[in-house]
């Protein structure tokens, strides 16, 4: 009676394993819009398997003659704004406002014509190229590009960046081609009032629109350091709206520029008083109630904030090519690899059956179920598959075989029953693999795919192994 029950139980378990294996390697197909699609999500493939975008950048060699402000030491203080560049003031007395400002700065600074190069000779060296590369890497990580390769030519400064293809790739050019130089300048004469080096941090924030239309407004928030806070306080005292004795309102305006492009032109409200907290919030676009528009604003503002926050690039690059490189791993190769894996698993089953007879055969079948369940788990947990993760999968398979062999030896050696043998084996095994558990947990939190995928595969592998072996493998040998 007991023997029949054990037989029936083992057959049922084998059928469950066959089902899991079919689901993992063949799939469950459901009809969706006149086509059949696998119900189980696809593997999330890394660059090794899915191909990548190869972006090539070279150092910009543009140079231009420009009139600049310089101080007594000959240091650069801003680009001179030509009269036709100055927008008309909205209030009376625009000429008075600009003349007043220019008079102030004319007494402090001198004008000079200089050749301004995108990449001055002082930054055409290995150290600058490497500093630039490090900042670009930081920018890529901050916007969530977790997988990339950067090739830097130390002699020419040229960069090649490989990253996964996505619809956002063109918006990522900015991370490399934007220097991240944010300045607050006097809009009338172009003198730099607050240099970007005083920026402590930048971020994208949002809040409900002050217009009361129920929409949301995205802002670029800039926080200045101690020196910048002092400068901001001074600037927010001077560049305000004011009313003269005749009731005419004038505004002294500033421009906030990123890499020479104006983000906004504004003035500080005299009613609010000077800004003492060292923070400004620059509205981006208009307030909106549309989710898609809001997401776009937030996404582009986040990238701009990342560019500013990560630091100024020493070198300025221009994009020279953007191509998609197809993965060397073809579908045929993947099919061959899958077949090879199946053959290997069968061989392992045969070897175990030879070594441990019937118990070994059941262990081999159990091992196949473990791999199948793990592959399903990987697909549902969205773990990226790379060459690194395949190596770790092999390690997990080896560990599972070691566990199985330890269990079979313990069962053969014990008279007290398989439950005790299983408990002993689990205790010895998990005490021995604690370093693997530690590494899996630590590496899981790495943001780069190269390292993070190792941790995630190891973590899910060990988790599935524990649950699976308790539920399925142990049940095979229960008496």
């Amino acid at each position, binding site marked *: 009676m007991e023997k029949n029950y054990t037989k029936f139980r083992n057959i049922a378990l084998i059928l469950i394993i066959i089902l899991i294996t079919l689901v993992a390697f063949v799939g469950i197909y459901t009809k969706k819009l006149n086509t059949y699609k696998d119900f189980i999500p696809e593997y999330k493939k890394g660059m090794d398997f899915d191909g990548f975008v190869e972006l090539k950048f070279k150092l910009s060699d543009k140079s231009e003659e420009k009139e600049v402000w310089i101080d007594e030491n000959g240091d650069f203080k801003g680009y001179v704004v030509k009269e036709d560049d100055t927008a008309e003031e909205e209030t009376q007395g625009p000429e008075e406002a600009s003349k007043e400002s220019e008079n102030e700065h004319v007494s402090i600074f001198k004008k000079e014509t200089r050749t301004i190069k995108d990449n001055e000779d002082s930054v055409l060296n290995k150290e600058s190229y490497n500093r630039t590369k490090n900042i670009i890497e930081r920018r890529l990580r901050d916007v969530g590009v977790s997988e990339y390769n950067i090739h830097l030519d130390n002699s020419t400064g040229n960069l090649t960046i490989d990253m996964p293809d996505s619809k956002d790739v063109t918006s990522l050019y900015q991370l490399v081609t934007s220097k991240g130089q944010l300045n607050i300048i006097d809009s009338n004469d172009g003198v730099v009032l607050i240099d970007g080096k005083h920026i402590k941090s930048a971020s994208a924030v949002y809040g409900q629109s002050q217009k009361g239309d129920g929409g949301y407004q995205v802002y670029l928030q800039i926080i200045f350091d101690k020196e910048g806070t002092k400068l901001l306080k001074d600037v927010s005292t001077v560049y305000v709206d004011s009313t003269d004795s005749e009731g005419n309102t004038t505004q002294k305006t500033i421009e906030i520029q990123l890499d020479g492009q104006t983000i906004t032109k504004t003035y500080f409200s005299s009613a609010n008083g000077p800004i003492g907290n060292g923070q400004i919030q620059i509205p981006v676009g208009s307030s909106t109630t549309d989710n898609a528009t809001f997401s776009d604003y937030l996404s582009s503002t986040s990238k701009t904030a990342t560019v500013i926050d990560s630091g100024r690039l020493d070198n300025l690059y221009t994009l020279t090519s953007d191509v*998609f490189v197809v993965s060397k791993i073809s579908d045929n190769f993947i099919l061959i690899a899958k077949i090879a894996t199946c053959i290997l698993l069968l061989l392992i089953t045969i070897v175990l059956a030879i070594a441990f007879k019937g118990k070994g055969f059941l262990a081999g079948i159990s091992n196949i179920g473990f791999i199948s369940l793990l592959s399903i788990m990987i697909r549902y947990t969205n773990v990226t598959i790379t060459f690194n993760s395949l190596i770790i999968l092999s390690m997990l398979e080896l560990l599972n075989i070691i566990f199985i062999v330890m269990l079979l030896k313990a069962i053969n050696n014990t008279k007290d029953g398989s439950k005790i043998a299983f408990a002993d084996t689990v205790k010895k095994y998990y005490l021995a693999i604690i370093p693997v558990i530690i590494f899996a947990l630590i590496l899981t939190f790495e943001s780069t795919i190269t390292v993070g995928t190792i941790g995630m595969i190891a973590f899910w592998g060990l988790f599935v192994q524990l649950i699976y072996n308790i539920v399925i493998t142990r049940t095979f040998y229960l008496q």
Partner: protein
Amino acid sequence: MVKETYKKVLLLGLALLIVAGILVIMLKGFNVNMMYKQHEEIVLNIGKEYSIEDVDNICKEVFQNKKYQIRKIERFGESFAINVINITDDEKDQLVEKVNEKFESEFKVEDVEINTIANVRIRDWFTPYIRSIIIAMVITIIYMIARFRKNHPIANVAKLLLINILTILALGSVIAIARLPIIPSLISCILSIVLLEMCVYISKNINKE
């Protein structure tokens, strides 16, 4: 007695292997996969589908003994890139001529650009791992000291670290001597081997207890 002899022979063999490996690395360095070394690239868009075998045959004729790699570019299957360690003017002329002949294209030698692709520094491969591995190693060492607290913990940790270092040196020597191409995934191979070694060591010591 026999075991002791085997141990000595093994240690001697290991020492010789490591010394040989260090010499090879000092004289010749590692064999880095061409795609990670500085090399040159030609990209050609022939405007129609092609067979990789045809491009491969052309490359064999033009580059002969030089290592090259052909990469499919763009999703439409009409472009490819040929990466070679270096491309001479003669080779460029020959390549353009044979591609035009085979695919009926009209490339001109002066219009085809050779791009230099910079090398990837091997130490950049290790950078993403450093922080996590250091943290994990520190926690592992603390665990091992706690685990072996009654049985010479420091000596056990030192012995295990020494075994790991010797393993890494031995693997590095084998890779250098056998001129196996270095690729980034090698780091996770070495990491797996080191982790398995730690597990075996701990397991043996648990059994002894």
